[in-house]
């Protein structure tokens, strides 16, 4: 089911995987407010790439859907969907919903 709980659960599994390769002072906290972009973020651009790929993998495992998160749509949005875990979860939910209804 494409619920907010399922979306967060998917992203948090990807966060766990990412944290496994990050030093203690750069670990991502599993909260909706966690910043993924900008000066307040603890992740650098490469870690963000890692996270997005891991989220795609978890979505495929959980929903059986192959998504590309960093697509032209995401890059052209006024506000990046990768700002926070909340905005990422919202975006993932929209993409899953679109794929399920296609």
């Amino acid at each position, binding site marked *: 089911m494409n619920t907010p709980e399922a979306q967060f659960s998917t992203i948090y599994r990807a966060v766990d995987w990412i944290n496994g390769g990050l030093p203690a002072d750069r670990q991502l906290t599993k909260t909706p407010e966690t910043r993924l972009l900008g000066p307040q973020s603890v992740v650098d651009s490469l870690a963000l790439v890692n996270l997005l790929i891991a989220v795609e993998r978890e979505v*495929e495992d959980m929903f059986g859907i192959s998504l590309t998160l960093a697509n032209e749509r995401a890059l052209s949005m006024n506000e990046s969907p990768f700002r926070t875990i909340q905005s990422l979860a919202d975006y993932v939910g929209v993409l899953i919903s679109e794929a399920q209804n296609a």
Partner: protein
Amino acid sequence: MLENKVVLISGTSRGIGRALVEHYAGKECQVIGCSRSPFEGELRNYRHYRLDVADESAVKDMFAQIRKNEGRLDVLINNAGVASMNHSLLTPMTTVSKIIQTNFMGTFLLCREAARLMQARRYGRIVNFATVAVPLKLEGEAIYAASKAAVISLTQILAREFAEFGITVNAVGPTPIKTDLIRGVPPEKLELLIARQAIKRYGEPRDVIQVIDFFIDPASDFVTGQVIFLGGV
């Protein structure tokens, strides 16, 4: 050392690709191949997909299947390629497009999808195909050589981008090998080309396999972004 590795090879229906399949299947790897043509005959440890390497949807479907069936990918060998020997003034854009799509875009697409799969285990080996036509600056092969020059740049930059994921990216640059790829090239042109090599003979699939064996060896984890040209070019 390579036993049970999951190896994906493109362009496997004939030529070097087929030789690579037989070599790695013989080493007890789980080999997966793809090409536009079917794979004639059956081989243990081998599964074939019929697709165009520049077809994003088909390629993504193949990787989804690999993920489902094997759960991982250890090695990608980007062998698929097309060539066309012609003076640039006589080269139609359809030919340019086909060569760039297969040789460059296909290589990029497979590298990208493979790295996504390899990233999960923080391990991978990718080998791309260059050609001696790049350093030799062969007349009549402007588009083919340009597409392979792009593959060399791609290899060297992906090596840096993928290093953090434990993935190495290297390239092998074969000399002419008697396969379908050079079937349309006049023999006198090939003799001229071979005369410019340090070792003046046609290449053999085993020459290419030797280099790939080195690149994909698990112990070659400090070797990345390299291009090895055969024949002393």
